[in-house]
């Protein structure tokens, strides 16, 4: 039996991102006066919302041992349809149903390509991403559409007590995802699927169906993230999804260096998402040029991935 993590190395392995996150908060709080304030924290949380929710979708797919980058296009498409149809005067409820249908269709398409036709998930989902981007441009011809209905905008601008509404969505969805994945049979099968699909098939669990469901649920999460993102921006700009594309990937992989080293997990992804915007906000507060921020984020990501893959190497043993 192995010991519980006791050495410093093991602790860093298992909780690396969490430490870095706390460290970053402390450092920024000391050297920047503006950083440690309720408003700034609210700001970081709100900014992390769509990133976080979208990353939960990706995390689910990663847990199942696949990858899904279709959100890179889906977010833009959903935003364009949302803003466009609202402008045309459709009721917000109807528009919401339409974009939900778009999300479900995209998820089903992913499932058909990856589970049904057994295409590699990376390439298939990138193809779907391009399809979504193309459809977006056909729909809005690349024109930015603003949303002006205050009632609709209040979905993201409202406060419940001191807590901005998006923060409720972020943590609400986190709790639901985390609970379903860790406490229900279906959620545990998703993990088992990613670890050893033969084991799952052998006991008579419908592995393909489970995996297909994962892609559909992920697409629904992407769609919700897109909904929040579009409303927060106050409209649909071109390429909205593309900014998030790599941030979402980064948050999920940062999460792998948290709690369960080397494995995608929801608490880790949440920390990862908050961490990314904490750094952005902290560095901005220090007056560091905006174009240097990605450099710092890149370095942090390299360290996180190094930690998580070092641990994985230990499990799989060296091949020769």
């Amino acid at each position, binding site marked *: 039996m192995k010991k519980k993590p006791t050495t410093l190395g093991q602790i860093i392995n298992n909780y690396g991102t969490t430490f870095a996150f706390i460290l970053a908060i402390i450092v920024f709080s000391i050297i920047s006066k503006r950083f440690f304030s309720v408003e700034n924290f609210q700001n970081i949380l709100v900014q992390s919302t769509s990133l976080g929710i979208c990353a939960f979708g990706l995390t689910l797919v990663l847990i199942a041992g696949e990858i899904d980058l279709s959100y890179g296009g889906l977010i833009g498409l959903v935003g364009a349809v949302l803003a466009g149809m609202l402008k045309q005067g459709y009721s917000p409820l109807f528009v919401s149903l339409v974009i939900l249908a778009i999300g479900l269709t995209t998820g089903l398409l992913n499932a058909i390509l990856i589970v049904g036709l057994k295409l590699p998930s990376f390439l298939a989902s990138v193809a779907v991403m391009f399809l979504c981007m193309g459809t977006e441009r056909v729909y809005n011809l690349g024109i930015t559409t603003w949303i002006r209905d205050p009632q609709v905008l209040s979905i993201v601008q409202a406060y419940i007590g001191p807590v901005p509404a998006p923060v409720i969505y972020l943590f609400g969805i986190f709790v639901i995802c985390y609970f379903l994945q860790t406490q229900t*049979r279906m959620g*545990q099968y998703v993990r*088992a699927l990613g670890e*050893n699909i033969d*084991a799952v098939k*052998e006991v*008579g*669990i419908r592995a393909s169906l489970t995996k297909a469901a994962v892609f559909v649920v992920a697409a629904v999460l992407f769609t919700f993230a897109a909904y929040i993102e579009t409303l927060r921006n106050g409209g649909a700009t071109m390429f909205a999804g593309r900014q998030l594309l790599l941030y979402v990937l980064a948050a999920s992989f940062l999460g792998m260096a948290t709690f369960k080293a080397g494995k995608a997990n929801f608490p880790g992804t949440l920390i990862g998402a908050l961490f990314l915007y904490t750094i952005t906000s902290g560095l901005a507060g220090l007056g560091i040029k905006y174009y240097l921020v990605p450099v710092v984020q890149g370095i942090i990501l390299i360290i996180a991935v190094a930690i998580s893959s070092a641990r994985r190497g230990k499990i799989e043993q060296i091949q*020769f």
Partner: protein
Amino acid sequence: MNSPIDDQENIVIRAERVSKYFPGVQALTDLNFAVSRGEVHALCGENGAGKSTLMKIIVREYQEDEGNVFIEDQNVKNMDIRDVQQLGLSLVYQDLNLVPMLTVAHNICLGQEPVTRLGTIDWKKMRFKAKEFLSEVSSQISVDVTVEELSISEQQLVAIARALTTRPRFLILDEPTARLDQHAIENLFSFLKNAKDSGLTVVYISHQLEEIYRICDRITVLRDGKKIITGSTKDIPQAELVKYMVGREIKQQVPKEIVPIGDVILSVNDLYPEKKGEDIGFDLKSGEILGIAGSIGAGKSEVARAIFGADRKKSGTISISGREVKIPNPVEAIAAGIALVPEERRAQGLVGRESVRKNITMVSLAKKFCAAKLWILQDKEKRAVKESIDKLRIATPSTEQEVGLLSGGTQQKVVVGKWLMGESDIYIFDEPTKGIDVGGKQEIYGLIVDLARQGAGIIFISNELLEVLSLCDRILVMYHGQIIKELLTQATSREELLFYVMGGRDYEKKTNNIRADH
């Protein structure tokens, strides 16, 4: 043939004229197979004979192309895995399909987790249920640890426990003891005996003659996808069985060959492997076959991997032909003339998606088949690979066949071929015959003796005492990471070896007690 188990009424699993074709291979041809209620039925055959295919058809993982399969007179044609589970059938696969990150409890209950009224997993009930089934085969494994923390023997026990959760009336075991240590094997056998008394029917696939004759009532032999014979264990002597399996007479053991033993070529001193092992020290002479025996988890593989540089060493020195060498990684080991045929061939020894040719020349490519270290001399490479395929009798349709598609024993031969091509001075074989049929084993023994005759030093690691005794000149016994005994093969007995393997001390003094126990 008048024993009650031959009674037609009592047949519970029946395959009628089953044929199965895979691209390039006729796996089963017009095969009839019947198992009676309450018997332990051995299914024997060389690798690729069709044993696993037949079992996978019975549990509905594969569909037969022709013929019918009945379980208690129910045709299973349109059933899936779950349906036959409901009929009371359970299979323990040769490949342990466990989920490494989940706990033992969860692996055992996978697919049938107890749930609370809210629909969430009832962890407490699950632990309880897992404990109940695990205790049938082992009392030492905690249900709360993750499977990746268990030894391979423990993992096998978990897989068996899982098969029991459906409360099967028919249990198929595909080489269950290949990964088990001596102690666990005894536990499994006493479980099988009890279960049989309470009506369990078992199909037992095994390459271990000793086990088959100990626990099985009847034997069916398959060869090349056809049934050769079914008969009572009493009526088929061991030599006959082996003959049916291979279709040609082979000797049960390697004839002990006297090979001249030369100078010390490998000397290991005070070696402490990082993973497991304390104070390992021994000499290996050229022409010598040195056995390392010990139950699974004793640290045999860890020592081999540390010498080969595949795992780190805490301390210790290694000298080759009297000169101390540093071996921090396998590349240095190969340069120093050491070859390791590793235990887990699929994980450690082969690139499954690549061809037989590329796998065989992987180690030697740069040394032997490259011009100016830049391009590959393909004709020369192909010729050498063909020679190797003929010499080792590797059953592959061509040099370009994807290794992953070959049977287990054939894959192992490819690994051996790879290292032979590298022409090393010191060969470490780590369980080279595990899961391999009798004929294949003989060929590998022959190869090892050949290498020794050519002056190589051989370290032969095995869990099977008989093969260690028949092949090696000298045997080191490992127990809990230490070498506790060195035995000369000529001056020892199977009992003595087993005694030390099981961790006994001072054989001479206790011999009398042991004799009494038997």
